[in-house]
């Protein structure tokens, strides 16, 4: 189906959505690398191994907690931050720039995983400046808004 997010594109999709994301990897349920945002396979594989080890270590560290296994992890270190989120089928990990908002990164991880699992696609809004820079045509105007533009009728009346 057109527009469906594939595992191969998921990590790249996350980096496209978030300007704070530097690199991302997707692992399948077995912990194997399913997608990477980087074209260097060695680096992608190394990042995937670390992401898998991250959840393994967190699971060991929180084994005694009287809670459900962790769904998301955030690691803040001097040069940046690593975030990871998992579902029964997938694990998505991302490295973010220093100062990235945790809540936004965690939300993006959940949203992209939901899209991968067949949820609604994430809608990306067009910045107002970008939209304004496009050359306007009457067809565009007619298709975009049913509200008549102010000033246009006044021009017609004068002529």
């Amino acid at each position, binding site marked *: 189906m057109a527009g469906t997010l594939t595992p191969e594109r998921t990590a*790249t999709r996350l980096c496209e959505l978030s300007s704070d994301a530097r690199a991302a990897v997707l692992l399948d349920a077995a912990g194997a690398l399913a*997608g990477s945002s*980087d*074209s260097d396979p060695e680096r992608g594989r190394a990042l995937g191994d*670390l992401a898998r080890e991250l959840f393994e270590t967190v699971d060991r*560290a929180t084994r005694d907690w009287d809670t459900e296994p*962790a769904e998301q992890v*955030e690691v803040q270190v001097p040069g940046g931050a*690593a975030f990871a989120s998992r579902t029964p089928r997938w694990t998505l990990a991302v490295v973010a720039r220093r100062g990235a908002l945790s809540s936004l990164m965690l939300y993006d991880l959940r949203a992209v995983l939901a899209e991968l699992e067949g949820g609604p696609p994430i809608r990306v809004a067009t910045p107002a400046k970008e939209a304004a820079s496009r050359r306007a045509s009457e067809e565009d105007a007619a298709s975009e808004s049913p509200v008549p533009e102010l000033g246009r009728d006044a021009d017609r009346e004068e002529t």
Partner: protein
Amino acid sequence: MKERRRGPIGRAADLAEGVAAAVRRMQREREPRVLVYDQTGYARLLQPEARGHERILEIGERMVQLAAGEDAGGGARGGGPEAGA
């Protein structure tokens, strides 16, 4: 209730308190830390003395280093694990 200071000295003191609080907050945010979230989004801090804390920070640092290398390399966006192989 804390009595509100009035006058220019009071306002300057309030401002200084605000700046000091902001600096403290920024320092706290810069400290290495591990947060674990459950399904409801409830966050728990993994205490520094907890088992695995050091290793998790090492993993995080290694991931950040790898990504920094990626930025420096300017690698094109990839895809599956075989991409670029």
